[in-house]
């Protein structure tokens, strides 16, 4: 009964040629193509902004001010007021929207369940995601700016309204991913519902929640339309985010890029690159935070 004694017929384990193999190859090529097609505009945008904006960037551009009138050539003044304005307004919007959004998601996923209120909140969040950002700006204009005037706060309200549904929905998805087995394990030790939520569900989902929230913040930092009606877009630094007209990078890009003057256009490219850099830094921060909070999850 030696193995050599019985001669086996050769087995062909290769995928047989035919429609099945062709389908597989077509699908693979289609996926690679789709990936490349997605990369082209992204690469093109990045390349153009860096190529046109890099020359405008300098320390005095990032921190100096005031923002010069459109007619002045490149190299005068700086976008400092707009950088400060963007950080202030987006930061304040995040402080308002992120905690509220996470609490909303906790209610919808942990407490509301299939109840009517949770369904309404979920539905409204979806509707709110679909509201055009300029409409959100108009909304804040009519209920706030008309009564209290332009301010960074009004801009933060508008951006916060845009962030809120995104934070609710992304946090809810993260909470859904927490396995029920973990909740049961905690309940079986005699934990109350709030304990289970605070000590098991939230920590398990926190990495995803934080990166979702930071994505929403980065997205909002680039919004222009809602700020047009709410902060007025001035040229000097306004450190008080709660009162007085303010300025931001996105609205400065809009104000400068639409001008025929080369100096203004150069400043617009520079501001665009600055904005992308801020978003990029936020993304990297999100990665670090996620890694820190998920260090026990594998």
């Amino acid at each position, binding site marked *: 009964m030696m193995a050599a004694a019985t001669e086996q017929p050769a087995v062909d384990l290769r995928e047989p040629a035919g429609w099945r193999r062709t389908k597989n190859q077509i699908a693979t090529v289609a996926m690679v193509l789709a990936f490349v097609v997605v990369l082209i505009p992204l690469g093109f945008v990045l390349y153009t902004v860096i190529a046109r904006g890099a020359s405008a960037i300098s320390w005095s551009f990032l921190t100096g001010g005031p923002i010069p009138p459109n007619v002045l050539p490149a190299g005068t003044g700086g976008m400092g007021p707009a950088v400060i304005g963007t950080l202030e307004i987006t930061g304040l919007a995040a402080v308002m929207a992120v905690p509220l959004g996470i609490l909303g998601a906790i209610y919808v996923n942990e407490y509301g*369940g*299939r109840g009517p209120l949770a369904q309404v909140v979920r539905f409204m969040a979806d509707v709110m995601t679909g509201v055009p950002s300029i409409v959100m700006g108009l909304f804040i204009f009519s209920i706030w700016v008309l009564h209290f005037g332009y301010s960074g706060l009004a801009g933060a309200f508008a951006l916060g309204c845009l962030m809120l549904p995104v934070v609710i929905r992304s946090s809810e998805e993260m909470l859904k991913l927490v*396995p029920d*087995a*973990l*909740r*049961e*394990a*905690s*309940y*079986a*030790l*005699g*934990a*109350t519902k709030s*304990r289970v939520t605070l*000590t*098991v569900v939230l*920590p*398990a989902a926190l990495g995803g929640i934080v990166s979702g929230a930071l994505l929403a913040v980065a997205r909002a930092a680039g919004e222009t339309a809602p700020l047009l009606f709410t902060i007025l877009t001035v040229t000097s630094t306004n450190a008080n985010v709660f009162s007085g007209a303010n300025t931001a990078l996105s609205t400065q890009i809009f104000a400068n890029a639409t001008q025929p003057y080369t100096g203004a256009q150069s400043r617009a490219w520079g501001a665009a690159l600055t904005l992308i850099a801020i978003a990029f830094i936020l993304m990297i921060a999100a990665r670090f935070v996620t890694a820190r909070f*998920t*260090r*026990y*999850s*594998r």
Partner: protein
Amino acid sequence: MDQSEQETTQTQLSKPAVLQDAQPQDVASAPTGAQIFETKGLSIYYGSFRAVTNVSLTIYENEITAFIGPSGCGKTTVLRTLNRLNDLIPTARVEGDVHYRGASLYDKDVSATAVRRRIGMVFQKPNPFPKSIYDNVAYGPRINGIRQKGKLDEIVERSLRQAALWDEVKNRLNKSGLSLSGGQAQRLCIARTLAVEPDVVLMDEPASALDPIATGKIEDLMREIKSRYTIVIVTHNMQQATRVSDRTAFYSVLVDSQNDTRTGTLVEYGRTQQIFEDPQDPRTQAYVTGRVG
């Protein structure tokens, strides 16, 4: 925090109060402890679906009681009723009596949280928290208000020793609980349950995902801790039931072909030896001899 301590003392005080020692009429005359659980005519529904019906049994202190039976016969459902974990399923409903140390578990003013502090549970699939090994074990004591580092250290070491896991993890207590192998993770879950010093430990097929060696460790551990705890275990492994349990409850499925419903029910309950060697019900006999299931 004060409240939980009070509750613990109350349990200890109430222990001797319910020593209505009803001796069952069986031949093996080992001394029988206090009645821990007593169910009478228990039926459990999910919405309008009756999952389990007519379960009446008594579970005794410091014994290991095994629930056996084919899949879908309601063993796990009954087990989860004993610490009110089925409350988490919104449509679940209980009919009949479930008494724990003489107190009705499903009375209006009974807190499910207080019940679960006394009646812990180990699940079929190991489910350590995504926290460090230390924090996994310290979780229960912490939610019961123990904050002092020294005391927590002591509890963690004691619980891990009881679960026969201490030597394997003592040098990496700050590593993730998810880094452990299946058998270690299950013993971590047992340690986590023991850390709150429950009165009863419910185990839902704790060894079904484990190899024979890890299973053996968990069975040894069950025999070791039964002097301090009362254990109820659901198992599909009949050898396991004969190896570890003092009493065995055999469940089966009643099939109503007219309405196409399947309802679990308790068929026979008695000393493990009697159930396996001298079953009274033909269904039990068919199951334990391997002719069915």
